[in-house]
């Protein structure tokens, strides 16, 4: 294995110092280098596939490409397209999660915004980290999303506004304006919950079991969502900054770029963000129709001690009559202690990560459980949640998600877009 100096010298478009900085930033976030300059044999390619690093974090493996650039502009995305393809190929071949790290001379908020939108659109499964020479870091990593900006005095700011107007003259960054409001949508629990309520509460269609009613202003949204109004105001500001809500002179704001919003949401959300418990049936057997019927029948008759739960994934699609494939995996969100549910369903924890049944303790509990509806006597996640969840399932999940979008979600999104008087 080549030593670090040799490796760094050999790197195209890289500088040793910047790569060191990236490695240090990743190390602080729990990543450990397993191997450098990784070579993966590939059929028909004499040189195979080459990656900069193989890293590990907890029990997960990541293929990592590190790129160094002086600036952050539109051409950068074209330049990193190849590393992204390489990472995606490594993911298919080895199961390593893709992580792209970029070091730039200086973070340009507009460039960052565009790059994030492009990644959300073209490579939503990609983890990424962008750092600059002033130690600013923006990242989308398994540990969470980061937007850390420092001024030249070294003071930390947890948020910044992506607008190059009105920059304070004392700021070290002409492009960045600091304030207490969130920079953009974080797609945390409340962000997701507000979005769902806003998109679905006014529709009469299926796929939503949460609150319904008219929303003519933010206060009404807060009331329907059962949260305090300031949280909604803050969220609306983030929506506006993210380009999904537009104020119009003298008129009420409107929703915009809903397809991009959905693409970003899909890219930011990971099923693995939830706490998964892979399970096997205690009495074994194939996952055939009979087993599924038995399983769903048990779900229909929970005991008093069974915690709240909701079906998602392929089985939820089946109940929505939107089944597109023969995939049989079962995904079930459960709130609280899963043991009573496991007993009721006659399940046993499995060491096999590809086990056919997965209980999920949700990271975003309010968003997951707030919109559940009942189909065939079973609690099922709202259709948007199901769409997000199946998007990440290996057993034809992406296809299934597209099918949901075509058959149901596009209509709902369309209805929401046509509501010109959003607030």
């Amino acid at each position: 294995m080549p030593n670090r100096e040799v490796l760094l010298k050999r790197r195209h478009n890289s500088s040793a110092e910047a790569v060191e900085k990236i490695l240090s930033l990743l190390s602080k976030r729990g990543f450990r280098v397993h191997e450098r300059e990784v070579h993966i044999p590939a059929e028909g390619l004499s040189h195979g596939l080459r990656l900069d690093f193989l890293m590990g974090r907890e029990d997960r493996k990541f293929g990592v490409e590190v790129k160094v650039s002086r600036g952050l502009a539109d051409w950068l995305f074209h330049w990193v397209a190849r590393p992204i393809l390489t990472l995606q190929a490594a993911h298919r071949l080895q199961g390593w999660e893709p992580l792209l790290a970029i070091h730039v001379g200086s973070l340009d908020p507009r460039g960052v915004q565009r790059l994030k939108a492009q990644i959300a659109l073209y490579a939503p499964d990609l983890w990424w980290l962008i750092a600059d020479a002033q130690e600013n870091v923006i990242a989308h990593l398994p540990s969470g999303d980061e937007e850390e900006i420092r001024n030249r005095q070294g003071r930390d700011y947890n948020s910044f506004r992506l607008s190059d107007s009105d920059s304070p003259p004392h700021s070290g960054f002409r492009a960045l304006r600091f304030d207490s409001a969130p920079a953009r949508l974080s797609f945390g629990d409340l962000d997701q919950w507000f979005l769902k309520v806003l998109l679905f509460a006014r529709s009469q269609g299926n796929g939503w079991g949460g609150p319904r009613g008219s929303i003519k202003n933010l206060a009404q949204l807060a009331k329907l969502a059962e949260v305090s109004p300031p949280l909604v105001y803050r969220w609306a500001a983030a929506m506006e900054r993210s380009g999904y809500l537009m104020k119009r002179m003298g008129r009420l704001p409107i929703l915009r770029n809903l397809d991009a919003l959905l693409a970003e949401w899909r890219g930011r959300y990971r099923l693995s963000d939830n706490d998964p418990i892979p399970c096997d049936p205690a009495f074994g057997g194939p996952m055939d129709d009979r087993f599924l019927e038995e399983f769903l029948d048990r779900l229909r008759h929970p005991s008093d001690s069974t915690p709240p739960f909701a079906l998602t994934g392929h089985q939820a699609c089946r109940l929505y009559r939107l089944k597109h494939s023969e995939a049989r995996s079962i995904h079930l969100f459960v709130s609280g202690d899963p043991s009573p549910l496991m007993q009721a369903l006659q399940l046993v924890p499995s060491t096999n990560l590809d086990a056919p049944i997965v209980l999920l303790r949700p990271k975003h509990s309010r968003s997951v459980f707030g919109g559940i509806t009942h189909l065939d006597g079973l609690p099922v996640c709202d259709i948007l949640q199901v769409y997000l969840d199946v998007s990440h399932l290996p057993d034809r999940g992406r296809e299934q998600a597209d099918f949901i979008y075509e058959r149901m979600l596009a209509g709902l999104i369309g209805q929401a877009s046509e509501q010109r008087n959003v607030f």
Partner: protein
Amino acid sequence: MSFRSPDDFLAHVLLTFRPYLGTLVLVGGFAVRLYEIHPRAVPAATRVLRTFDADFATPPTGIPVTGRTLADLAEAAGFQPDFRGDHIPPVMKFVPKHPSTEAVYAEQYTVEFLTSLTGPHADRKGSAIVTRDIQAGIIAQRLRYLDLLLEIPWTVSLAGLPGIPKEAQALVVRLPHPGFFIVQKILISEERNRREKRPKDMAYVYQVVSLFRHDLANLAAEVRARMEANPAWRRWLERFKSLSQVLFSYPEAPGVTEAHTVLRAEMAGMGQDVPNPSMIQAGVRLFLMHC
């Protein structure tokens, strides 16, 4: 005398003892085989263990003669007594008179009668109490806790058993209540003369639980109610609970390990997934937790 399969042998035995089927209760491995066709059972993922021994539990009061004796019927059907051990009277099993030359030899097949053992294991002279006459010419082996298998027995029609003679399909057989079957298998596991059979018994426990997995809470409730109503059985129930703890409380517990070993051997090369110890432990606990 040859049999095409263990089911064929069982059908022959049941036809032989047809006049007594209202008194006898079929126990052991063939009971588990017939549980499979009981209307309250659901198909299990594991194949029921093969057995060649037809064991009948008999009432402690003996069996009154109904027309011909059991011994006559056995003789007429081609069975002969086979005496084993040095007990007085010796342990008696019926075996086919003319062993087959087929792959599954007929001499592997046996019929045995069992009756309950109450009181001490040995008499005042120190001789083990192992057998008892239950009818002229029929010696039954005495077994502890066997009375449980006679409590609220179930019945099953052989009509659902494939590949047996037509006349056998009309038979109705008495089987132990599955809950008592499990309790008896666990209670008897500590008996000294059952050590060799214990692994197979533990596998049967998992298989019975698996077959009645839709009904475990009800089965356990029926067992608990009956056993709590009887002072002697109440003690057995406590004993059963403590033994269950030892045998099935965690995936490495002895009962789990033994059941897994037997099932793995039975299902080797059949292309079926063998239940792992965690599955066996969790499955059996689903019954035990309701007892």
